[in-house]
């Protein structure tokens, strides 16, 4: 096998399965097979999907710098898949919130008005939702055909991945009650990933 075949038939399936493992563990814990959810299972699931969405956006944003530093150009081939996995975790985070926490699926007294209020009056929810909308737009246009058809507009839209990184960390930061140490770690990583690009651009 040449490098491209290795990426396609070994690397990508492996990374794909690895990245779905956290989701499988959530399901496994919920069913009591792999472990247990906490005493507050809905919050537990919400946090786990959200955390993996943040981790995956960081990993996605790390691909290009890593490629440029190492010269391993085949790394680019993982970028779309990692972006789609980020979208998957962000979507699961959102659906857990909407269906279980806010109760669309379980609460007879559920009201859309309350969702609208949360989206408009809780700034940390507003920015999290904005990040999800951007991810959705990128996911929908992620096919080769769409890329061809959209030409320059595609590049512009997909630059918003940087905005998603910023909004994601901000969303995380803002909902923490007091201990922002984990949010700091993500902010520093994001600053390094974006800082690298600015530095690279400034050098040219």
């Amino acid at each position, binding site marked *: 096998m040449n490098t491209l075949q290795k990426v396609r038939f070994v690397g990508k399936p492996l990374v794909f399965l690895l990245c779905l493992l956290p989701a499988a563990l959530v399901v496994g814990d919920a069913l009591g097979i792999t472990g247990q959810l*906490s*005493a*507050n*299972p809905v919050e537990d*699931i919400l946090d786990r999907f959200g955390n993996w969405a943040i981790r995956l956006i960081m990993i996605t944003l790390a691909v290009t710098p890593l490629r440029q530093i190492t010269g391993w150009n085949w790394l680019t081939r993982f970028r779309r898949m990692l972006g789609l996995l980020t979208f998957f975790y962000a979507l699961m985070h959102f659906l857990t919130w909407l269906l279980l*926490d806010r109760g669309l699926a*379980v609460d*007879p007294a559920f009201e859309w008005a309350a969702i609208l*209020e949360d989206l408009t009056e809780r700034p940390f929810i507003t920015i999290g939702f904005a990040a999800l909308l951007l991810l959705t737009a990128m996911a929908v246009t992620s096919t080769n055909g769409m890329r061809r058809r959209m030409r320059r507009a595609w590049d512009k839209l997909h630059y918003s991945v940087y905005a998603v990184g910023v909004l994601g960390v901000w969303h995380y930061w803002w909902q923490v009650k007091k201990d922002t140490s984990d949010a700091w770690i993500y902010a520093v990583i994001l600053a390094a990933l974006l800082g690298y690009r600015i530095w690279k651009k400034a050098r040219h």
Partner: protein
Amino acid sequence: MLIKKPADIRPSEITSEQNYVNRRDFIRAGSIAGASVLAGTAFGAVVPEGERAKLPDVGKSPFSTIEAPNSHEDVTTYNNYYEFGTGKEDPYRNAGQFDARPWSITVDGHAGKTGTFHFEDFMKPFDLEERIYRMRCVEAWSMVIPWVGISLADVVKHFQPTSNAKYVAFETLNDPVRMPGQRRRVLEWPYREGLTIAEATHPLAILAVGVYGESLPNQNGAPIRLVVPWKYGFKGIKGIVRISFTEERPPVSWNIAAANEYGFYANVNPDVDHPRWSQASERAIGGGLFAPRKPTQMFNGYGEQVAHLYDGLDLRKNF
């Protein structure tokens, strides 16, 4: 550490199988015997985790809710106690090594009786009662907890506050060696809380020393903590080492940390949102994955008993 070789252990030192089998009874009997020496309190013996002392002579109370309490597991594995970490399961994970004995409590300020008391002596004058209370956390989750405690009003009366005593202030132990969470300055240590004297003498307020009929687990605030069921949970200061009667309103930890988010009163109020999230509803712990949130009640459902304490006070400003 001195590790004895087999030859150094005399046969008389080896626990007989009979005694080994009965060791739990032995510990329990020891704690009860210790308790009777200490005039009716159950705090004589240091009891290792997993061998908590059953508290004797616990009376029932008409203030208890008839709602079903959360499981022992819920109550002891999911809570906030930043002295042992900021995660909700951190207190359970990190408080196991903590030894709440010996323990003393200093009473000072505008009171007739002041001084520093051994915990066991501090407890002597008071009767134990079970109080099954709703607990509403400011993070919008809630539990029902079967506390065992003493009336805070009785405690206040016992120390004879003077007319200058307008507030009662509480302080947690400050010991980063024993409380690993204090090695980071997430909050200003020691944790501090306070009540008006009217709140502190309200019959619903208690100092809890147990839960589920047994002495308080470390992670829940051993050996003694405050419980004020109509206020958000963070008012329930844990591991209390100082009680002060003050004329001025005492500074309180979460208000120091973020004055725009946490007020001095911190009464449960579904109409006054936290600046970042709604307080209109809460997630009842123990409902599982598919239980809907439930509406939060004014004063956590204790309005009939406590609303009069706040007559004429604008609860939006004094949140």
